[in-house]
């Protein structure tokens, strides 16, 4: 199959319309405007238009009109270049080329290119070839094609990246490229063990053959795996991923200038902490670099920001701070996060909130609502406005919650019953309904920790349209998440102030509250350090220190972007292990020629070019026609 094909060829019948301008052309030639005029003798020697030139112009006009009609009919017929796609029945060899930074060692990526070209060349003649490049994400460089030259050019265009390896991403993209076709996938990689980390993304159909072309890479690698400021010093950790001990020189640079240097012997498969003796300024940026000859260069430098981290602010609203509880447990739990550096907590009663401004409350990364009884109208409007603008909150339904005003407080229905209820004679415990939820991350292994807490009283909450994360034993929803277009809302159906239960006294309370705080503030938090491939919006995916421009009243701030250290470990797996790890799924789709044609037509969109050409032809016709008259 080759050349131009059409998705709706019946529209080509519209080309018959070219008979109209042709007929008009011929008809007009016969009935050319004739003016009977007595003084023609005076016209004889005047510069009259030459007949041949006029005829040529008419032919050009005719050609332009016919071209416009043909292009219009062609555009409606939705053309596509069939030569650029491969029939759904043609088997495909997908060359998936690893471009993670573990291949950035001297000469390694060149070897990868050669192996990829070799894999493309070895594809059976009956196969089309496609090229996929992958690191943490996979990208189709060349779709299935019979043009091996395009694949070779595509291989030359790929360069080593700065992200880690994710085989799951590569295989998922290969499966997508294969679609309903049969074929084979050749993975060109250094077979890094770490490449199998991360979630599975489906598998390859069971009839697709998978093979590996292993790129030989150095097994020696030193990497700066951590660098942070501790007091007035910078502390770094350098890891030797190799099988032999190495002595390495590690350099601290501040604002691009060397500030300190240290030499350390690092045993094989070990990490060594280094505290540089140079005083560092209170603001600015720094980098720690290890000299790693022969290793992967991308992980030899780690960047860090010396500016104080912006605190993550949480406002805890209580009915009365001086009363029993008064938000004390939540405040202390949040304050314990990250050695006291995690959150900046403000506890406030409803009356005090009245003096706040919308701008003030908008700076809070999340709210924890423990008591609403003392909230006045102004306070309720502030909370409601905050949530409406995408703010996050944890609503703990304790005795200080006034369900009558919740409708005014929350921009969404919370379905809280008007009366609190007892949880039976012996109380009830918590049972996780969705243990994969991030809030329950610390409880996945010791899942019983939450189950030890007894709850006596709760507010029944309707679970329709909400995600129930945990239930009280016996069935009522205990912990829910309200889906929202922006911002997050968690609803805890009982008290978090040690009044209706002893949960605040449980060892599970602190991790629960901290994780809830992290989950709620995740949306608004502005981390100082980013790990590739994730970067702040507008920042290129390259390691370094960047300044985020002022936006929305937030001052300029520096962020550090570093490579993912998982990729620094060159430890490989065998080809057999790799092939055994490839997930497989039964083939469910069959080749669909029409769908392929639609897809090709949709991707090429030649009809748009056809219409543009038609308008150009009409514009040309207008110009030539105007000159003719």
């Amino acid at each position, binding site marked *: 199959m080759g050349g131009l094909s059409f998705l709706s060829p019946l529209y080509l019948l519209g080309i018959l319309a070219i008979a109209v301008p042709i007929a008009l052309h011929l008809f007009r030639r016969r009935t*050319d*405007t*004739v*003016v*009977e*005029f*007595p*003084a*023609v*003798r*005076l*016209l*004889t*020697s*005047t*510069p*009259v*238009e030459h*007949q041949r030139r*006029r005829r040529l112009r008419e032919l050009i006009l005719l050609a332009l009109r016919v071209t416009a009609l043909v292009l219009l009919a062609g555009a409606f017929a939705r053309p596509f270049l069939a030569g650029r796609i491969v029939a759904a029945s043609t088997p495909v060899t997908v060359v998936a080329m690893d471009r993670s930074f573990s291949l950035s060692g001297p000469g390694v990526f060149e070897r990868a290119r050669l192996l990829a070209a070799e894999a493309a060349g070895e594809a059976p003649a009956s196969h089309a070839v496609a090229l996929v490049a992958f690191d943490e994400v996979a990208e189709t460089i060349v779709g299935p094609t019979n043009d091996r030259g395009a694949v070779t050019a595509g291989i030359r265009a790929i360069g080593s990246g700065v992200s880690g390896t994710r085989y799951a991403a590569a295989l998922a993209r290969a499966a997508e490229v294969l679609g309903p076709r049969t074929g084979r996938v050749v993975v060109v990689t250094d077979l890094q063990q770490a490449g199998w980390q991360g979630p599975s993304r489906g598998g390859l159909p069971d009839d697709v053959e998978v093979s590996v072309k292993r790129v030989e890479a150095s097994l020696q690698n030193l990497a700066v795996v951590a660098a942070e400021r501790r007091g007035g010093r910078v502390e770094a950790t350098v890891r030797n991923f190799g099988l032999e001990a190495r002595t390495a020189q590690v350099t601290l640079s501040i604002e691009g200038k060397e500030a300190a240097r240290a030499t350390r012997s690092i045993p094989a498969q070990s990490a060594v902490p280094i505290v540089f003796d140079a005083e560092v300024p209170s603001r600015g940026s720094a980098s720690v670099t290890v000299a790693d000859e022969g290793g992967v260069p991308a992980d030899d430098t780690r960047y860090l920001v010396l500016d104080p981290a912006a605190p993550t602010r949480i406002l805890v609203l209580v009915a009365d701070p001086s009363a029993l509880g008064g938000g004390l447990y939540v405040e202390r739990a949040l304050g314990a996060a990250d050695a006291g550096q995690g959150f900046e907590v403000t506890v406030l009663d409803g009356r005090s909130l009245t003096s706040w401004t919308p701008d003030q409350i908008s700076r809070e990364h999340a709210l924890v609502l423990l008591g609403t009884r003392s909230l006045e109208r102004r306070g309720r409007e502030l909370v409601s406005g905050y949530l409406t603008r995408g703010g996050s909150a944890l609503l703990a339904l304790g005795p200080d919650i006034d369900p009558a005003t919740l409708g005014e407080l929350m921009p969404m229905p919370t379905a809280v019953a008007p009366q609190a209820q007892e949880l039976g004679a012996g109380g009830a415990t918590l049972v996780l309904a969705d243990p994969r939820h991030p809030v329950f991350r610390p409880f996945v292994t010791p899942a019983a920790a939450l189950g030890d807490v007894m709850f006596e009283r709760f507010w029944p909450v309707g679970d329709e349209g909400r995600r129930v994360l945990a239930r009280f034993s016996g069935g009522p929803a205990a912990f829910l998440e309200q889906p929202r277009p922006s911002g997050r809302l968690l609803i805890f159906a009982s008290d978090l102030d040690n009044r209706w239960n002893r949960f605040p006294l449980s060892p599970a309370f602190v991790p629960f509250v901290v994780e809830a705080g992290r989950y709620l503030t995740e949306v608004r938090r502005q981390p100082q350090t980013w790990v590739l491939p994730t970067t702040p919006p507008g920042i290129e995916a390259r390691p370094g220190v960047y300044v985020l421009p002022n936006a929305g009243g937030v001052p300029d701030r520096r962020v550090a972007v570093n490579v993912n250290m998982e990729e620094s470990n060159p430890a490989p797996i065998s080809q057999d292990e790799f092939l055994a790890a490839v997930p497989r799924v039964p083939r469910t789709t069959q080749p669909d020629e029409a769908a392929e044609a639609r897809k090709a037509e949709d991707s090429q969109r030649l009809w748009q070019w056809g219409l543009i050409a038609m308008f150009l032809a009409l514009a040309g016709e207008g110009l030539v026609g105007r000159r*003719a*008259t």
Partner: protein
Amino acid sequence: MAGPARYLDPAIVARLGTIDLKAKTIVEGFLTGLHRSPFKGFSVEFAEYRQYLPGDDLATLDWKIYARTDRHVVKKFEEETNLECHIMLDVSRSMGYGSHAVTKLEYASYLAGALAYLMNRQRDAVGLLTFDDHIRNLLPSSARPGHLKSVLLTLERLTLGTRTDIAKPLGDLVQAIRKRGLVVLISDLLDEPDRIIEGLKHFRYRGTDVVVFQVLDPDELSFPFERAARFRDLESDREVVAVPAAVRDAYKARLDAMVSNFRTVLGQNGIDYTLLDTSQPLELALLPYLQTRRRTL
């Protein structure tokens, strides 16, 4: 001189019944205007008197007035002549062209009728000759009262001829004229200019005065066409494809050159030449005739 607005539009004249009425309307209107004009002295109106002044020819004294009123007045222009006038009217196919109310032939026939009427009123002998490439009608000149009617009837029944060949009828007429007189040629002159001029010169050699009226349609004067077209000659059927915007200037230059040539060469030979636009009042054509007639007398 009264402005053109005071004269009759050819389109109005065209709606006036028979040609004798048209001729009368044109001439009377013209004469009425002439009484009030500074060209009064050129008129042949016989009811014109003025006080006798020393030096006036005593032959012009009106003795009857003197007998009745004892005043000496001279009677101007009232005289009977034996001038022979020949009106040559081109009826070739090109004269059938008309872009508005009247064709060139209609305009020319009204002019011929008016001239005949005026000549008859002046008691000149008037004859009519119509031609295309040869003489088609010939009414010998006569001053008889009934003769005017024959002239006007002939003008009323004109039909278009074929090609123009002015030189040949001119030669025929030169041979036919035996007496000093006046020849009025009314034509679009879309023929070989040199042959026309040569033919007219022969009249001058014989002492015959000549007045030439070239009648052209406004389209011929301005070439106002917009769209490219195939222009077909009315007489030869020859076709020229032309884009008017491209050829207009050249056309007008050639037309101007032709008119200028006629005006210059004919003027050098004592022939009065007048270019007439068929959208202009007919009366304006009569004045050149009167000037020539006065000179002839």
